[in-house]
């Protein structure tokens, strides 16, 4: 493990925010941390970049000047122009002169904001603001890029643009960590981790996660008696048999990441209640 969290527990205001979380983060890869609001995603990311102390476990991170971090809110200055925002970020990381100019120009091209360099940050659309914030975090070519929910509330076109930037950073050698509430975004990276109530439910390569779902999963049009082991997917039902066989009339299906996530959460609930 080059960077990451090793068996980390963080307590915030007397409450355990994350417990025993191991999150390996490798160069030239994108790691996706998935969970609902309050699951502990931001705490993992903040522990990784050093914004919160850990109670137990250890954290490996590069020096501060080699980290790029974008929090879930803001990440830019509304009353500075696009150009000024990038220049401010670059200056803060010790860039100046021709190097600053060159890097800033390249970043604005990469994030597709060359055309609006004089516009105030606060006047950009939500999607453009997120792209600018990612650009600002990339301007000093960090070894570790940490993005907290860059795509939340963003329309699909901007979302695709943001993922293009994220993958590009990974493809160019950066170790990237992205938090999201959208389970389908877990497939975007080379590794994913699903968090719920501060605990890791599942982690690993996306193809491994769907390949290692326990039990048998099925699909059926209607169920007469919904059980704790069944849930809706569109007009259909999913039925999960943790051990034995599926009930008659239920067609076996291969789980996708969303199914895997629901099953992991169900299994964890069963373990807690038993």
């Amino acid at each position, binding site marked *: 493990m080059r960077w990451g969290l090793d068996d980390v527990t963080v307590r915030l205001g007397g409450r355990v925010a994350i417990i025993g979380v191991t999150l390996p983060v490798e160069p*030239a890869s*994108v790691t996706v941390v998935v*969970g*609902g*609001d*309050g*699951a502990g995603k931001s705490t993992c990311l903040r522990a990784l970049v050093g914004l919160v102390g850990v109670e137990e476990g250890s954290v490996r991170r590069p020096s501060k000047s080699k980290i790029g971090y974008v929090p879930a809110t803001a990440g830019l200055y509304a009353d500075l122009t696009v150009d000024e925002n990038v220049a401010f970020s670059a200056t803060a990381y010790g860039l100046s002169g021709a190097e600053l100019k060159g890097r800033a120009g390249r970043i604005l091209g990469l994030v597709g904001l060359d055309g609006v360099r004089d516009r105030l940050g606060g006047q950009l*659309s*939500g999607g453009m603001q997120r792209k600018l914030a990612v650009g600002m975090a990339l301007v000093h070519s960090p070894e570790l890029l940490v993005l907290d929910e860059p795509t*939340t*509330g*963003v*329309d*699909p*076109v*901007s*979302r*695709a643009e943001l*993922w*293009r930037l994220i*993958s*590009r950073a*990974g*493809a*160019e*050698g950066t170790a990237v960590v992205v938090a999201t*509430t*959208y*389970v*389908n975004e877990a*497939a*975007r*990276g*080379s590794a994913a981790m*699903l968090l*719920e109530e501060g605990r890791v439910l599942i982690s690993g*390569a*996306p*193809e491994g996660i769907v390949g290692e779902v326990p039990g048998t999963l099925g699909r059926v049009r209607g169920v007469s008696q*919904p059980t704790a082991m069944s*849930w*809706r*997917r*569109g*007009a259909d039902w999913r039925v999960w048999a943790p051990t034995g066989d599926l009930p008659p009339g239920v067609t076996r299906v291969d789980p996708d990441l*969303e199914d895997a*996530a*629901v099953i*992991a*959460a*169900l299994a964890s*609930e069963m373990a807690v209640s038993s």
Partner: protein
Amino acid sequence: MTGSLARALGVSMRFGSFTAVDSVSLAVDKGEVVGLLGANGAGKTTVIRLLLGLLRPSGGTVRLFEAPPTVGTRRRVGYVPQSLGLYTDLTVAENWHFTSAAFGSPRQGLPAGIESHADELVGALPLGTQRRVAFAVALAHRPELLVLDEPTSGVGPLGRARLWQDIRQAAEAGAGVLVTTHNMEEAEECDRLLIMVDGVVASAGTVAEVIAGRSVVEVRCDDWDAAFVALDAAGFSVQAHGRTLRVAASSQDVTALLAHEGIASRSRSVPANLEEAFVAVVTAGSVS
């Protein structure tokens, strides 16, 4: 389209010289879940406000329960905004009884799904539970039409599955459901979709119909990072899914570029997913 709960026929809405909604037609029938999709500013909220009679259309016809919308017909609608509209400093039971009273519904016990939280303050509950409460409260007066704004955003996978179970149950009991969202996971839960671009319905139908034979090129290679950078730098619309790349372009163009860059790869055409279809619809719509 007779018997629709809510219906718009060639409806337009102009604010000064700006046309927010342009000749939009849609219907929500009993028992179905319809998704209204579009980027921010595409006109989704304006359509909802028109359907509920909160705005008077500049042109076209709006029918709510087969009549022009009025305060009376609006009582038959349940609405859950993204902000949920609950009182966070009241308990679950207080929220429930207050809303029931406001709609003039007879006093009734809490539904099973939220009963165990009756005495807890709404503000202290996890978001997924808050959303279930908001949904239950919106159902308290047995509305015939439900309007939900991103009903499961920010909720974990199991919480989401349970919310959709509630929504489907309401539809199966006969309600029509209109979901506005730009979250493709929610869109895939709907029976039918309408995609709005710049005030116009740019595509409509089931998920399969919206995807409608669109395809992308799937690229697999050992050197995914080099391939990604090469395609992206050349201006291709490329997305990575792990080490597999998906490119909205012709197979020949992709293969030619990668061969020119000396990157060994295997490419094939695969069906687009809903997100890719949405991007294609929106990109084409905003060009025209």
